[in-house]
C-alpha cells in the first residue's frame, strides 16, 4: 500500500504533520510531502480535514497483527481512581488472557503516578504513565492528544474507556483522530475464539435492541463500557507491573476550552452507580410522603433511594436519582422496585441488578418479567411490614 498527497487539494494546514506517528511528513512550498520513512499506516489519510491524502488501500485493512495488548484508560475524579476503572481492569484482564496478551493501564493526569501500584494490584502488566499539568479532569482535548499519541506509538489491539460522561466525550474524538471504529456504551465484551476479534455487545433503540458489533479490519478496537456492569477483580496485594513513562505533547489548540466554574453540587451527593442496594419507587408511591417510607426502608438496608422518570417529574425525587434510559444505569446487588410498572426505558437502566424484587399490585406489570422475587400486593402494606421484619434481629422471626 502507498500513501500520497493530492497536491491540488492540500491547503497546507499541517494537520498531518502532527498525526504521523513516525514524523515522515514534512512541508515543502506550503504542501505536505510524505517522505521515505512512511510505513503506510494510513493515520494521515484519515486525519486530513480536506481529504487530500490518498491511499491505494482497497479497504482499510491495515496490518492488524502488529497491534497487541489490551488497554484500559483510567479515569480519575478529584485525583482518585474511579470504581468504573477497576471494573474495566477486571474485564480487560479476561480479554488480555483470552488473547494471550498484556493488560495495560493508561494513567493520564496532572499527578497520577501514585496510582500505578493500585493498577498493578488490579491486574495491569504494564502501566503507561502520562503526567502533564495540562491534563485537567473534565477537559477532553488534552487527553485526546495524550491518548492518541500513545496509541500511535504503542499500537494496542483493544482500548477500553468507561462510558462515563467524560469517557463518552473523549473516546469518540480519539476514534475519529485515529480513523478507527468505536462501540458505544457496551454491556458485554468477549473475544471471538476463532477470529480473535473483540465482540462488543451494546443496547440500542432505548434498550429495546441489543447489538453485537465488531471492527474486523481496523486496530485498535475501541469501546466505551457502561459503568456498573463489569466486575472488578479483588486486588492482589504485592502484584507488580512495569511502569513506562510516555511523553505528553499538549498543544495550544488543545486548550481552547476551559472550565470557569463548577456550580456547586445541585443536590446532596448521591452515587447511584456505586450503590450496593437501591430502593426504587415509581408512580405507585403516590407522593413525597410515600418516598419517606422508602427512605426509612433504605435507611435500614444502607441503601440509596431512586425512582422512575414519573417520580422525578412529580417532584418526589431530584433528577439525579432517576434510573433508566435518560437517567442513571445502575447495577446493585439488590434493587427493590416499589410501584414501578417496568417500562423498557426504566428497566434498561436496572436490568443488570443482581437480585430484583418487584412489589406491584398489578400481576401483569412488565417489571415482573425481569424480577427474581415477585410480590403482587399493595406496597403500602408490604413496605411497613418489611421495615418491621428488618428491625427484628436475624433469627427472631
Amino acid at each position, binding site marked *: 500500500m502507498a500513501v500520497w498527497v493530492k497536491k491540488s487539494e492540500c491547503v497546507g494546514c499541517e494537520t498531518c504533520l502532527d498525526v504521523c506517528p513516525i514524523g515522515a511528513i514534512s512541508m515543502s512550498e506550503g504542501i505536505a510531502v510524505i517522505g521515505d520513512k512512511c510505513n503506510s499506516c494510513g493515520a494521515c489519510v484519515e486525519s486530513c480535514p480536506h481529504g487530500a491524502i490518498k491511499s491505494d488501500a482497497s479497504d482499510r485493512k491495515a496490518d492488524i497483527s502488529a497491534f497487541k495488548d489490551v488497554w484500559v484508560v483510567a479515569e480519575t475524579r478529584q485525583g482518585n481512581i474511579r470504581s468504573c476503572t477497576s471494573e474495566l481492569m477486571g474485564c480487560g484482564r479476561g480479554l488480555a488472557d483470552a488473547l494471550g496478551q498484556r493488560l495495560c493501564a493508561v494513567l493520564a493526569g496532572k499527578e497520577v503516578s501514585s496510582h500505578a501500584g493500585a493498577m498493578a494490584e488490579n491486574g495491569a502488566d504494564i502501566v503507561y504513565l502520562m503526567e502533564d499539568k495540562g491534563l485537567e479532569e473534565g477537559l477532553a482535548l488534552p487527553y485526546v492528544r495524550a491518548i492518541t499519541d500513545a496509541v500511535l506509538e504503542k499500537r494496542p489491539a483493544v482500548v477500553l474507556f468507561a462510558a462515563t460522561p467524560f469517557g463518552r466525550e473523549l473516546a469518540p474524538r480519539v476514534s475519529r483522530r485515529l*480513523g478507527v471504529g468505536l462501540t*458505544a456504551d457496551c454491556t458485554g465484551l468477549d473475544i471471538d475464539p476463532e477470529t480473535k476479534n473483540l465482540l462488543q455487545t451494546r443496547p440500542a*433503540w*432505548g*434498550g429495546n*435492541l441489543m447489538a453485537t458489533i465488531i471492527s474486523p479490519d481496523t486496530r485498535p478496537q475501541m469501546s466505551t463500557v457502561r459503568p456498573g456492569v463489569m466486575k472488578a477483580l479483588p486486588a492482589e496485594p504485592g502484584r507488580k507491573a512495569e511502569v513506562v513513562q510516555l511523553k505528553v505533547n499538549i498543544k495550544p489548540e488543545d486548550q481552547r476550552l476551559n472550565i470557569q466554574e463548577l456550580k456547586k453540587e445541585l443536590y446532596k*451527593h448521591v452515587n447511584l452507580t456505586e450503590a450496593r442496594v437501591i430502593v426504587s419507587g415509581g408512580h405507585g408511591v403516590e407522593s413525597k410522603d410515600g418516598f419517606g417510607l422508602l427512605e426509612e426502608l433504605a435507611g435500614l438496608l444502607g441503601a440509596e433511594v431512586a425512582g422512575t422518570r414519573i417520580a422525578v417529574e412529580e417532584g418526589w425525587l431530584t433528577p439525579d436519582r432517576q434510573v433508566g434510559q435518560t437517567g442513571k444505569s445502575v447495577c446493585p446487588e439488590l434493587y427493590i422496585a416499589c410501584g414501578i410498572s417496568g417500562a423498557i426505558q426504566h428497566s434498561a437502566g436496572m436490568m443488570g441488578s443482581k437480585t430484583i424484587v418487584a412489589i406491584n399490585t398489578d400481576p401483569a406489570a412488565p417489571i415482573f418479567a425481569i424480577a427474581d*422475587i415477585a410480590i403482587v400486593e399493595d406496597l403500602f402494606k408490604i413496605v411497613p411490614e418489611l421495615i418491621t421484619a428488618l428491625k427484628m434481629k436475624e433469627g427472631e422471626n
Partner: protein
Amino acid sequence: MDKLDIKVLIKQVPNTSEVKIDPHTGTLMREGMESIINPDDLHAIEAALQLRDTHGGKVTAISMGPPQAKDVLREALGMGVDECILLTDRAFAGADTLATSYTLGKCVLRLGRFDLVIAGHQAIDGDTAQIGPQVAEFLGIPQVIRAIRLEIRGDGLLAERTAEEGTEIVKSTLPALVTVTKEANDPRYLFVPLLMAAFEEDAPIRVWGGNDIGADEAGTGLKGSPTRVRRTFTPSHNKKIERLNGMPADMARTLVERLRERKVI
C-alpha cells in the same frame, strides 16, 4: 460578535418509545413505526434560533438520511431555520458514526465559514452520542457536550454544561461544536405559514450527494465504516422468578429470609 453562522445537525429517527416486540418471534417490529425528528435535535434547533434572533445571522439545518428525511428538514423550516441541506446518496448507506461524522463534517466545510455547529446530544435509535464529538474532531474545533445554556461573549462562547453532579460553566473559542439535551430550552411550535412554505417547490432545501460535498467514497457509508453490526437480538430475561404468597407480614418475613440467603442484605 457579528452575525452568526450556525449549522444544526438533525436526524430522522423511528419513534423508539413506541417500539413493539413481536410476541411470537420476540423480535422488534419495525414496520409501521412512525418517523420523527430526534427529540434532542428540536432543542438544538431552538438553541440555534435563539442565538440567531439575538445576534442576527443564519441557521442552516443539515440531515443525512434517505430522501424521506426531507420531512425533518421541513419541520426545521417550520420552526424558522433559514435553509437546509439533505445529504442523501446510495453511497452513504450503512454508515457508522465514523462515516456519518465524515459526511456531516465534509458538508459543513463545503458550506464555508461557520461559527457554531449545534447537534443533539444523543439519537434515540443509534444511542451512541458519538456524532457530536466526532464531527468536532473532524472539523478540528473544541466541543461543549450536554450544554444547557449558551451565550456568545465577546468573540467566544460561554456555556453551561451538565456535569455528573451539578453543572459547569465553560468557556471556548469559536468556532465550536455544541451538543444540547432537553434541559436546554423549550422548542418553539411550528409556525404554520413557514411549514406550508416548506412544502413548496422553491423551499430552501438543497439535496446533495457525495460529489457535491467532495466526499471520498472510501470515507462514507458502509465502505467508510470500520464497525459492523454482527448480530442484533432483543434482550431476554430467562430468570427464575419466585412469587411470594400469603399475608403482607408473611411475605415481608419470607422476603427478608430470601435476601439473607442470597447474602444481599
